[in-house]
């Protein structure tokens, strides 16, 4: 079974599928993430696909500070992603609440709701930083 494990690990590393969820952000990081699909940055050459269903995804990429309305939905989506799964927290808002910390309707960062594997700061983060983040995460995957 060591061969199966190695194959699965190789498959996950070479072709991670990401699910993008905006948990209350301003869209700045989201449009930089979507720019990755476009011909200029083209993350498909790394095998990364932007998936639409939580059941198909390996990595959950979250942007935005967590608002009170979105928090239960975010947790439910996280639970629907099958193991093994990783969470990338994209942008300053999802790391710590960013410029909105102290507002009455936000929890302040995804770490308050989910276990996060990688933090990518920036307001908004550049596409190169996002690619670097996903590649660094993959190097941890074994």
């Amino acid at each position, binding site marked *: 079974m060591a061969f199966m494990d190695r194959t699965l690990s190789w498959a996950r590393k070479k072709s991670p599928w990401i699910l993008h969820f905006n948990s209350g952000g301003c869209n700045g990081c989201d449009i930089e993430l979507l720019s990755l699909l476009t011909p200029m940055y083209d993350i498909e050459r790394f095998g990364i696909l932007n998936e639409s269903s939580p059941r198909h995804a390996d990595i959950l990429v979250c942007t935005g500070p967590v608002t*009170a309305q979105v928090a*239960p939905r975010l*947790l439910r989506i996280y639970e629907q992603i099958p193991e093994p799964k990783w969470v990338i927290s994209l942008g300053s808002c999802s790391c710590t609440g960013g410029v909105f910390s102290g507002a*009455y*309707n936000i*929890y302040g960062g995804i770490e308050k*709701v989910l276990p996060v594997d990688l933090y990518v700061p920036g307001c908004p983060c550049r596409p190169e930083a996002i690619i670097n983040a996903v590649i660094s995460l993959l190097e941890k995957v074994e």
Partner: protein
Amino acid sequence: MKDKNLLEKIREILTAMSLEESTGIRNDIGFVVPSEQLFEVTRQMLQAGLYHLSAITCFEMEDGLHLLYHFWYFAGLTLRVVLEKENPRLQSLTPLIPGAEFYEREVREMIGVEFDGLSNSEPLLLPENWQSPPPLRKTQSAQISASRPLDGLNEVQNG
């Protein structure tokens, strides 16, 4: 096409209704309207040809709750209504301007004014489990920051 005299006509109509013109808002024509006359004033303005309601602003001052109705016809025209802080009620403009529905729902949840005749008065922006007082009230601001929605957090993480 722009009717150059429309705002002047409306100014005359409103002055004829004995409404007080106020110069509070920079660059805008402003009138103070008693709450019971607001619906009739709006109806007369719509009949004259003014149709665009940009926004409804609400804030709390010492003398009561101020509601500002911002209209626009190549320049701004604002109507100010002052309500008392306890049990504020006002007639909804949605029978005349259906587009006012979202603005009135937001004013209702943010500062607590009840609108008579508003068919859908569910909260627009606040979360479904919001327990604190309306967020834009100054006098209760200490309560709002104390009871933030973190109360439900443990259920969220464990549930």
